[in-house]
Every structure is written in C-alpha cells, then in structure tokens.
C-alpha cells in the first residue's frame, strides 16, 4: 500500500505533537500504544495500528527515560512498525523488527539535541540573573518546538519520501529473513521485561516474579467450552500483586515499629529497674 502526500503531512503533525509529549513526558502519547494508534488512524487502518501498537509497546516497555538516559526511540518504533506493516504487508511482529533502525536513528537524534542544548541553560542563567521571565520562557518554548519540528520532518521523510526504496528493500528479502524478523518480534518483549527487572528485581522481590509467572500460566489456560479465555488480561494478577504489596507494607511497618518499641524499652530499662 502507498502512503499519500496528505497522509505523510498528517504524520508530520502526529510526529510533532508526540515529540512535544515525549520531551515533556506529559501524557505518554509518545508510547507505541498511542503513536501506533494515531498512525493507524492517519493511514486508514485503525486495526493494524492498534495491533502494531500492542506488539511495539511490549518490546519498548522497559526502555524508559529514567535517570535522563535516552533509549532506542519508542515513538519512532511505534510509528514505523505500523508504516512498515502497511506498506510492505509484513506482520506486525516482523514490522517491529524492521522498525529497529528507525528507533536507533531517532535515539541518536534525541541524544544530539540533548547534547547540543547544553548551551541553553547558560543562556537561561543570564536571563535568570536579569530576572527576564519573558525571554526565559520564550527560549525554553522555542527549543522544544524546534526539536519537535525536526522530529516531525524526519518522520515525514521516513514515512513518505523513503517509502519506495524501503518497500523495494524489504520485498527483496527471502522468506526466511522476514520469518526471522517475526521470531525476533516475539522475543523482543523479553528485552523490555528484562530491563524492568533490572530495577524491580531484588532478593526480596524474587518470589513475587515467580508467583506472577505461575498464576498467569494457570489463568491463561482457563478457557470456556468455546475456547475463549476466561481471564483475558493480566488485571487479576495486578490485583493479586496489589494485595501482596499491601500485606508486605503493613508487615514491614509493624516490624520496624515493634523494633523501635523494643529498643526504647531496653533503653529505659535501667530506670524501670527491669
């Protein structure tokens, strides 16, 4: 399928808006779940957009901006997964694997901006010393708009201008290569989950990983007579997790309080004559 100029320009707009959101982390419209949805709307295939969003969101789940780092770009991954599935007819899983170079391109672009923009605080320092609120606010808005515009234009180029060569390139792949990308699409969520575990997995949280794993394995196999899953999503496990967290919260607090009491009693022990 071809992408028209109008669709390309609409994607520029989507890229611009989502990029502002990405820089500010305002409403998480830069996540693949939302960016793919918008892309699906623009391309007129909402269902494809939503399915690609699910695949890409999971793969990029752990790729967070925590600590000011810049991961492979979830916004470009979300948009390009839909675009590649749409233009080349590949499955969402295969398109996710193919979108990876674009996510790397945007990551490099993001790092470039955050590095180049190191001049900005010095200019802002000068405005602060003058108490110049107008110029201060003007500059921070200007640099954000500029970066978002560049991201929008790069998305336009990737989506519209480059579609013919990308299509020709992908169509030249033998089936075993595209099937390889499909396999990779199924494995990539493991990267996102492993990255989440880097921060959440500690000796004391290990048991909960296995509880969640086993409970979901069991729940996923409970089906009605016509084969539809009874527990269609992980919400029940999230409720279980909340319950476990609440138990632990109350328990640990109590232990510390008791410990504090014991130590205060033993401190006061002499005067009490115990």
């Amino acid at each position, binding site marked *: 399928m071809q992408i028209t100029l109008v669709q390309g320009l609409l994607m520029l707009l989507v890229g611009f808006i989502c990029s502002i959101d990405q*820089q*500010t*982390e*305002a409403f*998480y419209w830069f*996540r693949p*779940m*939302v960016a793919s*949805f918008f892309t699906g709307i623009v391309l007129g295939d909402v*269902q494809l957009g*939503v*399915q690609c*969003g699910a695949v890409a969101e*999971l793969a990029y*789940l752990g790729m*967070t901006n925590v*600590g*000011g780092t810049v991961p*492979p770009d979830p916004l470009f991954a979300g948009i390009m997964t839909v675009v590649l599935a749409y233009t080349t007819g590949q499955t969402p899983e295969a398109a996710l694997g193919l979108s990876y170079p674009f996510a*790397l391109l945007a990551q490099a672009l993001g790092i470039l901006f*955050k590095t180049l923009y*190191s001049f*900005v605080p010095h200019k*802002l320092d000068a*405005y602060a*010393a003058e108490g110049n*609120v107008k110029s*201060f*606010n003007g500059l*921070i808005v200007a640099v954000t708009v500029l970066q978002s515009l560049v991201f929008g234009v790069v998305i336009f180029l990737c989506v519209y201008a480059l579609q013919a060569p990308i299509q020709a390139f992908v169509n030249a792949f033998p089936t075993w290569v595209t099937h*390889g990308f499909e*396999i*990779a699409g199924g*494995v*990539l969520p*493991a*990267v996102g*989950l492993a*990255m989440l*575990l*880097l*921060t*959440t997995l500690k000796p004391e*949280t*290990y048991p*909960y*990983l296995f*509880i*969640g794993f086993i*409970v*979901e*394995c069991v729940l*996923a196999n409970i089906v009605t007579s016509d084969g539809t899953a009874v527990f269609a*999503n*992980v919400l029940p*496990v*999230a409720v279980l*997790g909340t319950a*476990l967290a*609440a138990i632990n919260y109350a328990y640990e607090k109590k232990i510390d309080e008791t410990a504090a009491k014991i130590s205060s009693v033993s401190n006061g022990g002499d005067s009490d004559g115990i």
Partner: protein
Amino acid sequence: MASNDENDEVTPTAANGEKLGKLTSQDITKLGLLSIFEQIAFSFERMQAPGFTSNMLPAFKKIYGDSDEDLKEFMTYNMEFMNTEPHMATLLQGVVLSMEEKHEDRELIKGVRNGLFGPLAGLGDSIFWFTILPITAAISCSLAQSGSILGPIIFIAVYLVVGLSRIFFAHLGYGIGNKALTSIGENTKYLTKAAGILGTTVIGALIPSYVTVAFADTLVFGVDGSSTVQSVFNQIMPNILPLAVVFAIYALFKKKHANVMYIILGIILISILMSFLGWM
C-alpha cells in the same frame, strides 16, 4: 529577606508598599497544570532545571510582586541541576513555593530542593515507570492484540488522569511544606518496596503472556522422529523458554552491563539464523 517565624501573620509587602496576597488554591492548581510540561527544554547539563524554574514563576511573582532582587535570586538558584520523576518535581515545586511564601531562609529552601529530588526520583520512578506503565500497558495490550481500539483508549484515559494528577501533587507539596518531609522520607522506604512487589508480580505475569519463544513443530528428534523438541520443553514446564530468555537477557544486562542496542541486534540475528535453519 529575613526569615520570619511560621506563626508570624505579617502580610508581606512589595518594595512599593503594596500589600501582597498569599497564594490561593487556584494558584496551586495552575502550578500543577503548568508543571505537566516540567521537563521542557531538557538537556544533559541541567536536565529539568529550566522547566522546574519556569513553572513556578507565576506563583512566585504573586508572592513577591515586582521585587526584582528576589525574582533574580529565585530564578538563579532554581536553575541549578534538577532531575527527578516529573510528578515528584511537581510535589517539590509545591514545597519550594510554600517555603518561599513563608519567607524561609533561601539556603534552607535550596537545601530541601537539592536534597530531596534524588530520593523522590526513586519513589516516583518505582510508582510511575515500573508499576503504572507495565500494568496499563499489559491491560491495553491484551485488548489491542485483537485489534480492539479499547486498548489505546484505555491507555490514553489512564495517562490523562496520571498527567492531570500533577494538580494533586502540587497541592500535596504545597500543603505539607517542609514540615512533614521527614515523614515522607520514612514512608518512601515502605512505599518503594510495596511498588516493587506489585511491579515484579505483574512482570512475572507478562512473561508467559507476551514473550513468544518456541521451536518449530517440524523440529523433531528420536529414531522415528516422533517427539518434537518443543514438546519436551512443554513437559518440563509450559513457558519455560520465555522465562529462560528473560533471565538470560537480564543476566547480560546485570552481569555484563550489555548495551541494549547489541542485545536487540543479537536477538534479530539469532532469530534470522533460527529461521534459516528451520528450527523456529
């Protein structure tokens, strides 16, 4: 500006003698709305400092009116390095403004600002990045996989609430001021741990739901080729391969500090190799 006693009811006056009102509830709500864009103009050098400063200016001007000296001082010390989880930044902005309103010593305010953003980042990240995101993503992905637009709509709705919750955090920060900071510090420990437990449980559930690793049905062994390789793994435990892959990648990150770019490239190359061999 001398630091007044907390109970001192003297209304601050600007240089021109005009009486200045204290901050109203609307001013704090406005702070919460502005701080949705707290991370604006992010750069590696000062990170969130520009937005952190800018969001507070309307409320600060209401406290100090046209006092240029205070404005300059305020903007300058807030332009120091700032990096925390955005919602926690809003909370901290509320604390800073309530201390400014009480005319606390600026060195003390600075100390609170610079001392608190780190610990708050840990709490905020564990709530927003490592708990709310995986759960929201998991639920919306399970709907979206079948092409239902309810998936993205739920995701957008949840994050609309999460984004606007900054209004709540602004009021929370302004309300507690610096008084209850020690108690936040104590509860941070328990809350971070509880959020970690919830997050880990959900991640455990996501592994069988979303990671797909399975050998092809055509890959068989035995003299008569009667058993598929995959059936052996299924007999040990269903979904054991996805679990093993997650742990293998986790180990590469943890022990070898592997770069995520190489891991993804590696997965793509191995997958293509597996496809070429006809194993998967």
